[in-house]
């Protein structure tokens, strides 16, 4: 693994069209070694197409993809050796046994026989499939099939692992196993996963790329995305005291802190107040210092963060909104605007 460069995936200005439909539109990103990147987007956003181009299965119309320094278009044999790929819905041949399938795949991936035997034991252990190694693939449950797909993807210890919706159809227990498995690859292999399940992405990924209409609408770590898309954070307080004077104290804590909403006082005099700020630092301590000093009794304080779901919805909506006026401004994009969620 010594010859693996620091940047394992380099995608620049990738374009893929199906007839008049532009599935991937000028996409560029890079993935570093050992990084776990999540690809997020609504149906038909171009996630699977992007992944298929990365694996060399589909050719792109324009742009370039480099895997470990090799361009996919001109050196497919070299790049395929560095990629472990699990397609959407994880297709498997139905009449093989688990260990036979892994053996066949390992031989296709040019693993020496002696090493392959030990490695199959290892991945079966990792994926919790030891008990199922002699079972026939067609008769496995969905979760077990999914884990066979993951075992197959990591079998040859590739530098890049690409998984299209690895956790689809799994129960919560199996999702945790898969999530831990993916997290255990961090630092050794670059992983790209796509998913609709947003908490999944948030927990496992170092970086998230939100794709819509074939282009990146937002990227960064989940925390960065929150700040970029929303630019503000919200605090909820339960306090008792003079509601009219509250607004006057806020600029003293932070210049952008403002009162957005305040509820009616309950019988015990406490009311729920919502504050909003553009500052990215946590203002909780300051609030707890200043408000009691001004004579307010604070019962609870909470910082509500937008979930990745909100970020996702806001980012994809923002990109749809941007495309609606002036259709001529965006060439090559014939996709009809999708309904807003």
């Amino acid at each position, binding site marked *: 693994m010594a010859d693996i460069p620091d940047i394992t995936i380099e995608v620049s200005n990738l374009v893929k069209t199906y007839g008049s439909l532009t599935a991937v539109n000028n996409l560029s990103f890079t993935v570093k070694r050992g990084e776990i990147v999540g690809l997020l987007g609504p149906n038909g956003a171009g996630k699977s197409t992007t992944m*298929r181009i990365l*694996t*060399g*299965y*589909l*050719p792109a119309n324009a742009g370039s993809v480099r895997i470990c320094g090799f361009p996919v278009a001109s050196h497919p*044999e070299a790049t*395929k*050796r560095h*990629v472990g*790929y699990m*397609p959407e*819905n994880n*297709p*498997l*041949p*139905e*009449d*093989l046994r688990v260990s*036979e399938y892994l053996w*066949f*795949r390992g*031989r*296709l*991936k*040019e693993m020496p026989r002696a090493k392959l035997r030990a490695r199959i034991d290892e991945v079966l252990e990792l994926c919790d499939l030891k008990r199922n190694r002699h079972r026939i693939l067609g008769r496995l449950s969905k979760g077990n099939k999914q884990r066979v797909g993951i075992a*197959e993807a990591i079998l040859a210890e590739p530098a890049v692992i690409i998984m299209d919706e690895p956790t689809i159809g799994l129960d919560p227990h199996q999702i945790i196993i898969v999530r831990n498995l993916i997290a255990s690859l961090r630092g050794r292999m670059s992983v790209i996963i796509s998913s609709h399940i947003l908490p999944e992405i948030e927990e496992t990924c170092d970086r998230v790329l939100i794709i819509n209409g074939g282009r990146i609408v937002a990227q960064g770590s989940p925390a960065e995305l929150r700040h970029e898309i929303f630019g503000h954070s919200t605090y909820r307080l339960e306090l008792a005291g003079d509601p009219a004077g509250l607004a006057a104290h806020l600029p003293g804590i932070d210049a952008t802190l403002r009162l957005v909403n305040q509820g009616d006082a309950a019988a015990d005099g406490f009311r729920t107040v919502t504050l909003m700020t553009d500052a990215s630092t946590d203002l909780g301590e300051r609030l707890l210092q200043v408000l009691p000093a001004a004579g307010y009794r604070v019962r609870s304080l909470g910082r509500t963060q937008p979930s990745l779901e909100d970020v996702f919805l806001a980012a994809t909506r923002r990109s749809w909104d941007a495309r609606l006026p002036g259709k001529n401004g965006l060439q090559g994009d014939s996709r009809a605007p999708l309904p807003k969620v």
Partner: protein
Amino acid sequence: MRHYFTILSHEIRALLYNPSTYVAAVLFLLVMGFIFVGILSDYSKAPQETPPAAIFFQAFFIPVFFMVPLLTMKSFAEERRLGTLETLLTAPVSTTEVVLGKFTAAYLFYVLLWASTFGFHYILQLYARDTRYLDSGPLIGGYLFIAVSGLLFVAVGILASAVTRNQAVAGILSFTILLGLIGGLSYVSELSALNTDVLSPLKPALEQLRVPGHVDDFTHGIVDTRQVFFYLTGCTLSLIFSILGVEAKILNS
């Protein structure tokens, strides 16, 4: 080519695991057995000029029409429908290796099935207690014809499977192409329209392409390199089109 044998052994194993292989083999032997018994009963009624083996190989088209589509329709259509073609082609293998591996497995099975019909001739010789029935000349020629023509027929089946995702379509397509190749060509070569001045240059060429004529030649000990060349180039061409078909289907999927 290092993956060729991996794919070949995988395909052979898949054939051996599949119950339909055994059903097809039994069906084949049953049909060929009936044909053989029919030939023998004809011979017991009246003396004939040609050896029974030569007549037996003239019925080659019956198993070709149903066995070749059955054997090959699965190869790519099924993989494409299941989606396993994607995992196969994203491994470091080339499409050529995959096509050649699948072709060889189907071809080996086809030849093996035909080889098992040698048992008929052996049993006949055993019961008739007459070594003349094991007439080596027509038998060697006949099996040579099966081996050479099988290259083209199986390649045609692979081609039909490579251009669709539906097994039934692949089966019917390969049946149609084989029918055109065997029945159609010999029908066209006998048309009276070929005797007109304009078309008469075509007549000798079309007569050379008559597959039943090739069987007669082979069983009578004539191994014509033109015929061998026809089957070899046809096989190569079909396989090249299969490779293109598999890749083109990906582009348009």
